[in-house]
C-alpha cells in the first residue's frame, strides 16, 4: 500500500510537471479565438482565425486600415497604374527587415506572388490572381506587375496577400510553417502549442515603431459562452463572436468595454433560381414581402444587425447603393402578387397551381441557434401567405456537398464579400458552376456589368456600374436579403486602442495599448 502511494505521488509529479503558462502582466494581451489556427502561410490563408494571427506577423503591400475609402501604405509606399491599366508599379518601403534581420526586397514580393500562382502550391486563392501575367523587379525597391487585362479590384487583391520571406520560406518549405513563421510585421512568432495557444512578441525593429504591448497570446476557446465568461473574468482581454445575451452579461460587470463591428457579411434566404417554382419574378418578390427582415434583426439578432437591401452593406459606404427597390414586410402585397402569378388558396390553406401545392424545403446548417430561430420565423411568415416551407438542418460538411452539387430548393446562409464591389464570384452566371453563385442566379445584363466592372479602373465609372448591379439584384430578388450582422466583442478595460473598423479586416493589435 505504501509503495502504491509513493508511486502515485511520483506519477502525479511527473504528470503536472509540464504546461506552458504565460506571464500575465499588463504588457501581455490575451486574445480569445474561436478555433485554433490552421495555416499561417500567407499564400495558404483560408480562414478567419489564421488570417487574424498571420496578419500580425506578415504584412501586405497595401491595406485597408481605418476606412474602405483608401488604401494605407504598408510594405509599398507608393503605387501607380500606367494609363493602359495593364501594369502596376509599387515602390517598396526601404530599411524594412525580416524578423531574422535579413533585409526585405522586391525579390520577396515577386517570390510571394509567384509561389501563390504556382500550381504546385495548390493555393485555393490562385484563381483570383491569374490576371497577373508577369512580375518584374527593376531594382531592390521596385516591383512591377503586368496584367493580362485591366483590373479594377487589383489593389483590393494586393491587400489580401501578406508578403513572405523568400530566403526563409524557400529554406523551411511550405509545410509545417506555423511555428517557424517569419514576417516584417509588428509581432514575431514565439510558439504554437496546437489547440492551446499561439504566443507572439513585439518586434523591436518594426518599421512603424515597436508595439505598446510586449506579448500577444491567442487562445482558442471553442465554446462561445466560455469565451464570454473568460472575458468577464479577465482571463482573456479580447473576445468576439459573442451572442447577444452573453454580450449584455459581459458588459454588466463593468470591466469590459463593448466592441461592436459592422460586418460586410450579408445573410439571406436564398431560393434556387433554377427551380421553376421561383421562375416568376412576382413570386420572388412575394417571398421578399412576406419575410420580415426588421423583425429578424430586432427579435432574433437582438438588434445586432442592419436590415439588408442587397449584398453590399451600408457600412461599405463608398459602394453601397441605397436607391434600390425595397421590400418592407407586407403579407397582403405578397398574397396579391402570388395570386397574380396564378397561385390559388387550396382547401388546406396552402397555395396551389395546376394541382401542385406551393411547398419547398430550405437547407441550413445545424447547431446554429440564431439561424434556427430565424428559419422558424420565416416558416411561419411563409405559411401566413400560403407557402409551405420545410426546414432541413444539415451537418456542415453535408451542407457543403449539397451546395456544391446545387441540390436544394432553397438555402439559408451568409456570405462575407471583400470590400471591393466586384462580386463576380457571387452573381455572374459562370459562378454557378465555378464559384459561389449558390442562388444559381443568371442574368445577361448583370453578367455584362460584372465583366465590365472588373475591367474598369476608374472608380467613378465602377461606382455607376455596381450601383446598377445592386439595383437589378434587388428588383429581381436574386435572393431575399435579410441583414448584415454585427460582430459583438468585448475588450478588457485595462487596454485601449482596439480599432472598431473597418469591418471584416483583421484586428490591428499593434495599436492596442495598456491603460497605465
Amino acid at each position, binding site marked *: 500500500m505504501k509503495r502504491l502511494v509513493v508511486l502515485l505521488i511520483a506519477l502525479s509529479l511527473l504528470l503536472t510537471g509540464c504546461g506552458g503558462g504565460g506571464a500575465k502582466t499588463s504588457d501581455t494581451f490575451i486574445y480569445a479565438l474561436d478555433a485554433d489556427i490552421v495555416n499561417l502561410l500567407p499564400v495558404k490563408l483560408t480562414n478567419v482565425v489564421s488570417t487574424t494571427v498571420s496578419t500580425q506577423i506578415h504584412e501586405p503591400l497595401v491595406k485597408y486600415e481605418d476606412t474602405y475609402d483608401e488604401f494605407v501604405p504598408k510594405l509599398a509606399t507608393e503605387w501607380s497604374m500606367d494609363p493602359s491599366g495593364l501594369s502596376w508599379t509599387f515602390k517598396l518601403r526601404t530599411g524594412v527587415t525580416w524578423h531574422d534581420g535579413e533585409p526585405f526586397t522586391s525579390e520577396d514580393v515577386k517570390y510571394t506572388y509567384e509561389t501563390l500562382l504556382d500550381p504546385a502550391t495548390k493555393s485555393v486563392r490562385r484563381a483570383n490572381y491569374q490576371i497577373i501575367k508577369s512580375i518584374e523587379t527593376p531594382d531592390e525597391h521596385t516591383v512591377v506587375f503586368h496584367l493580362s487585362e485591366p483590373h479594377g479590384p487589383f489593389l483590393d487583391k494586393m491587400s489580401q496577400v501578406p508578403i513572405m520571406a523568400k530566403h526563409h520560406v524557400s529554406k523551411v518549405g511550405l509545410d509545417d510553417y506555423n511555428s517557424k513563421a517569419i514576417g516584417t510585421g509588428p509581432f514575431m512568432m514565439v510558439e504554437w502549442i496546437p489547440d492551446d495557444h499561439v504566443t507572439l512578441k513585439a518586434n523591436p525593429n518594426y518599421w512603424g515603431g515597436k508595439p505598446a504591448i510586449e506579448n500577444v497570446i491567442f487562445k482558442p476557446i471553442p465554446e462561445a459562452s466560455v469565451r464570454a465568461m473568460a472575458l468577464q473574468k479577465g482571463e482573456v482581454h479580447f473576445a468576439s463572436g459573442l451572442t447577444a445575451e452573453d454580450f449584455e452579461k459581459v458588459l454588466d460587470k463593468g470591466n469590459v468595454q463593448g466592441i461592436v463591428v459592422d460586418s460586410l457579411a450579408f445573410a439571406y434566404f436564398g431560393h434556387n433560381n433554377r427551380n421553376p417554382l421561383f421562375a416568376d419574378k412576382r413570386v420572388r418578390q412575394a417571398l421578399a414581402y412576406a419575410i420580415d427582415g426588421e423583425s429578424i434583426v430586432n427579435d432574433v439578432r437582438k438588434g445586432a444587425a442592419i436590415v439588408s437591401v442587397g449584398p453590399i452593406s451600408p457600412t461599405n459606404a463608398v459602394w453601397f447603393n441605397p436607391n434600390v427597390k425595397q421590400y418592407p414586410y407586407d403579407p397582403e402585397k405578397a398574397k396579391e402578387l402570388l395570386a397574380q402569378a396564378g397561385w390559388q388558396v387550396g382547401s388546406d390553406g396552402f397555395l396551389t397551381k395546376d394541382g401542385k401545392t406551393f411547398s419547398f424545403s430550405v437547407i441550413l446548417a445545424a447547431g446554429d441557434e440564431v439561424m434556427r430561430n430565424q428559419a422558424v420565423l420565416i416558416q411561419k411568415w411563409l405559411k401566413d401567405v400560403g407557402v409551405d416551407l420545410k426546414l432541413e438542418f444539415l451537418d456542415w*460538411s453535408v451542407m457543403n456537398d449539397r451546395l456544391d452539387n446545387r441540390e436544394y430548393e432553397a438555402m439559408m446562409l451568409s456570405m462575407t464579400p471583400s470590400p471591393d464591389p466586384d462580386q463576380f464570384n457571387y452573381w455572374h452566371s459562370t459562378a454557378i458552376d465555378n464559384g459561389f453563385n449558390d442562388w444559381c442566379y443568371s442574368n445577361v445584363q448583370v453578367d455584362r456589368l460584372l465583366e465590365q466592372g472588373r475591367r474598369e479602373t476608374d472608380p467613378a465609372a465602377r461606382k455607376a456600374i455596381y450601383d446598377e448591379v445592386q439595383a437589378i439584384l434587388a428588383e429581381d430578388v436574386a435572393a431575399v436579403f435579410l441583414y448584415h450582422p454585427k460582430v459583438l466583442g468585448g475588450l478588457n478595460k485595462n487596454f485601449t486602442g482596439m480599432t472598431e473598423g473597418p469591418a471584416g479586416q483583421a484586428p490591428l493589435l499593434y495599436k492596442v495599448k495598456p491603460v497605465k
Partner: protein
Amino acid sequence: MLKYVVRRILLAIPLVLGISLLVFGLMHLAPGDPVRMLAGREAPQEVIDSIRREWGFDKPFLVQYFTWLSKVLRGDMGRSVISQLPVSYLIKSRLPYTLKLNFWATLLGLAIAFPLGVIAAAKRQTWVDYAASAFALVGMSMPGFWLALVLIIVFAVQLNWFPTSGTGTWAHYVLPTATLGFSWAAGLMRMVRTSLLEVLKEDYVRTARAKGLREKVVLVKHALRNALIPIVTVLGTWLAYMVVGTVVIETIFAWPGLGRLLTTALLQRDFFLVQAIILMISVAVVAANLLVDVLYAVIDPRVRLS
C-alpha cells in the same frame, strides 16, 4: 499463463484490423468530401483534382485502404488533409493532455466511488445508502456539458477560484477533472455497491463473521477483493468511454486534448487524422481488455485454471 497471454494477443490482431477496415469504410460512406473541405468552396476544379490525386482519393476503395494500412504499419500515419501537418505530430502533441486529464479524473472517480460504494453496501437501506444512491442517480443523469458549464459559472465566474478554461497551472485541472471524475464516480459507485452486496451474501462471508472477525476486516479483506472482478471488467471497457467522454469536456474547457482533436477532425472530414485517432483508441481498448483478462487471473486464481 504466458501461453494464455500470447494467445490473447494473437487474437487481438484480426480484431484491430477489422476495426481499421470498418473505420476506413465508414469515413468513406459518410457524406462530406474532405478535399472540398480543404480546398474551400472557391477552389477551381483543377485544384480539387490535383489534391484528390495527391492524397490518392481517386483510387478504388480497397487500394486506398491497403496503401494507408501499409503506411501505418511502417509508422507513417500520413498528414492531416486540412492543416497538412503530420498526423503523428498532431496526435503526439495532444495525447499527454488527454492522458493527464483522464489520470486525475479516474483517480478522483475511484476515490469517490470506492469508499462511497463500500459504505453504501455496508449500511444498506439506511440514509447513508439512500444518499449515496441519490448521488449516483444525479451524477449519471447529469449531462457532462451541463455539469461543466455549471461548474464554470459557480467556481470560475462567481467564486473566482479556478480559471474557466485552458491549461497551464494545476488550477486549470480542477474543473475538467471534477466534471469527468464525478460522472464516472456515479456509475462506478453503483457498480461497487451492487457487486459488494452480491458477495456479502456468500457463505464464506458468513463464515468469516461467524469466526468473530470485525465487520471492517470482513468487508475489506474478504468481500471487497472478490467484489473487484466485475468492477475491473467495467474499468477496462471504461477506457473507451474515457476518450469519448472527453470529447465534449475538452471542447468546453478548451483543453488541447485528443477528444477535441477528434471532434474538429470529424467535422472537417479530416480522413487520415480521424482514422489514426480511432485506430489508436481501438488499439487502446483492445489492449485494456487484454490487461483486464490478465488482471482477472491475478485477482482470482480460479480464472487461471480455465
